[in-house]
């Protein structure tokens, strides 16, 4: 399949939008307490078959606990977890149809690569020749056939990861759980492995759930992401939905870079919201349906790349335009990030693609510039 953009392949695969689609994994009001502390707090979530789903959040947000509850290493304090229509309560991990790829890989050090991959199959009681055939298939899939007889300590980090992957896929589980799969890899290896993982998932037609704190990993790999914090899910959506339509300041800030302009609602009707951002001294008009009412305090969230920077003033300065002074410039080669300080003292970040090959750029430190944006380039957030 030809690839046109980084990220999940453009496809019509969107069972979450299909009302007739049957949920594959369901969390129904699941809470997990450790003593007084609620690691997972009344979470309900639906994951569909063949999804590549990501649980994203900082450490301590509960994402790992959720994964461990699917695998069976922890039981919910209350609520149910359903897998393919079956309640998993009381089912020990060695009887569940899920398999996990551990963050530390957890390869059995006293067994060869072959024996590691064959381990799960032996537990099933598969006949020896079938096991050998499946192991060979798996090793070919991860390109480790010549290393079959080696022991884990004789392999590099990247190779160990592949063995872990092959081992966890050998039983063709209904769902594969991946715990921070790319964390231990260096940058180049990480990029290669990202594509391999998504290709593998589509080819095998399995459901993958990954747990990560790395937003880039989640955005690249997942069909849908659940952004979590403090044991709760803040937002679930596709990477594009999460990025362009965050539902809260937390999500807007967690993924990528964001500018937040605080202000009061002047009017909200007909799909247009007018905000008075005192402090920044700007009037913002946003194309948005919002539950906020006149007088409410809201935030205008706009991404740096959606803001235009110019030395010349726009034709209409009264709306969606602010003046400021360039405080700092982060030159990254392909883009320049302008940190613009407003009269109120607040700083707005604006990113500009360096589309032309210039060594000396027209806008430099301490220049007075105008920042402008389109009415549909940001969202209004009430929390």
């Amino acid at each position, binding site marked *: 399949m030809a690839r046109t953009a980084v990220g999940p392949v453009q496809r019509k695969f969107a069972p979450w939008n299909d009302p007739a689609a049957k949920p594959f994994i369901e969390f129904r009001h699941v809470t997990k307490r450790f003593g007084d502390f609620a690691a997972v707090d009344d979470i309900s979530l639906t994951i569909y078959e063949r999804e590549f789903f990501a649980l994203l959040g900082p450490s301590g947000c509960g994402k790992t606990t959720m994964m461990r509850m699917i695998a069976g290493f922890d039981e919910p304090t209350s609520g149910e977890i359903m897998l393919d229509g*079956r309640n998993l309560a*009381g*089912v*020990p991990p060695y*009887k569940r149809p899920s398999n996990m790829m551990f963050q530390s890989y957890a390869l059995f050090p006293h067994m060869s690569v072959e024996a590691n991959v064959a381990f799960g199959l032996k537990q099933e009681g598969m006949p020896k020749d079938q096991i050998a055939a499946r192991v060979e298939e798996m090793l070919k899939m991860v390109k480790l056939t010549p290393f079959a007889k080696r022991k884990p300590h004789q392999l590099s980090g990247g190779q160990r990861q592949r063995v872990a992957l092959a081992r966890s896929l050998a039983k063709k589980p209904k769902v594969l759980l991946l715990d921070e799969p790319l964390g231990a890899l260096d940058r180049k290896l990480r990029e290669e492995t990202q594509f391999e993982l998504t290709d593998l998932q589509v080819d095998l037609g399995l459901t993958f759930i990954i747990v990560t704190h790395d937003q880039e990993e989640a955005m690249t790999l997942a069909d849908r992401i659940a952004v979590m914090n403090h044991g709760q899910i803040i937002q679930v959506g596709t990477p594009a939905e999460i990025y362009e339509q965050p539902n809260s300041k937390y999500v807007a800030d967690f993924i990528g870079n964001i500018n937040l302009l605080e202000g009061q609602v002047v009017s909200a009707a007909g799909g247009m919201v007018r905000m008075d951002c005192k402090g920044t001294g700007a009037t913002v008009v946003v194309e948005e349906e919002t539950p906020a009412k006149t007088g409410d305090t809201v935030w205008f969230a706009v991404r740096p790349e959606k803001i235009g920077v110019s030395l010349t003033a726009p034709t209409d300065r009264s709306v969606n335009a602010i003046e400021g002074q360039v405080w700092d410039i982060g030159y990254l080669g392909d883009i320049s990030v302008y940190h613009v300080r407003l009269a109120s003292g607040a700083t707005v970040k604006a990113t500009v693609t360096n589309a032309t090959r210039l060594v000396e750029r027209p806008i430099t430190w301490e220049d007075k510039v105008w920042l402008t944006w389109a009415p549909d380039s940001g969202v209004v957030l009430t929390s």
Partner: protein
Amino acid sequence: MASESDGRSRGLARWLVLAIPYAWLLILFLVPFLIVIKISFSTPVIGQPPYTPTFDVSGGIGSLMASLRQLVVDNYIFLTKDALYWKSYLSSLWIAIASTFLVLLFSYPIAYGMARAPRAWQPTLVMLIILPFWTSFLIRVYAWIGILKKDGLLNELLLSLHLIDQPLIILNTNWAVYIGIIYSYMPFMILPLYAALERLDNTLLEAASDLGSPPLRSFWQITFPLSIPGVIAGSFLVFIPVTGEFVIPDLLGGHTTLMIGKTLWDEFFANRDWPLASAVAVVLLVLLVVPIVIFQNQEQKRAEREG
């Protein structure tokens, strides 16, 4: 779906793993102590067993109560009256405290030297220290008899070097006992000390030096305090067993060496007074119970911390 019987068999296996060693220790470690306590309240008689009352369960509650009423505290009263005993306790405690201190004094430089040795030598050094520990305790104590005797190797050496003109009487004195204890228990102190010192971050000392602290002060203010867990572990490993030590005072000590382990042995085997020996054991146990509990708590906490 988890089957009922599977869950039950899982639970049973899990329970057995704990229950079997637990039961073993209850029956063969705890119950014997209870029996010692009971017999310490009994009276010696000629016969088998050489004490009375014996608890006869077949007689029912009535005979049990009658037996209980025959228990006496005579043995304990005797212990307080006869000077031999309380002197033995005090002497044992004193010898144990003094030798713990001496063992620490001698072991610390050795453990420190080992910790500072080049990394390549360390496993070998540790093995060299452990080797005598694996060799028989009895043998090592015995070795000193040949050295410390009146006509032993030490006296021979000193006489031939004309450092003395009369052989030194060392064997069968308290001096020999101290030498024997220090010799036998040094590995027990060196190993925990070494473990604590080896873990010490060298950059701490570099930082101290950089801030102007001379080596000796750095040692007392940084190295030694950080090695205290090792000092404590080693001290318990020496003090508690030495208090009840038998072999060393028996083979190397003399008539004036009063150690309670020897006293207990003599009471039991020579005098056949089992109730009295039991009372001696109970009092010794009471004396040691506090250090033993502290030791156990420390070690358990340390094991958990390193997990």
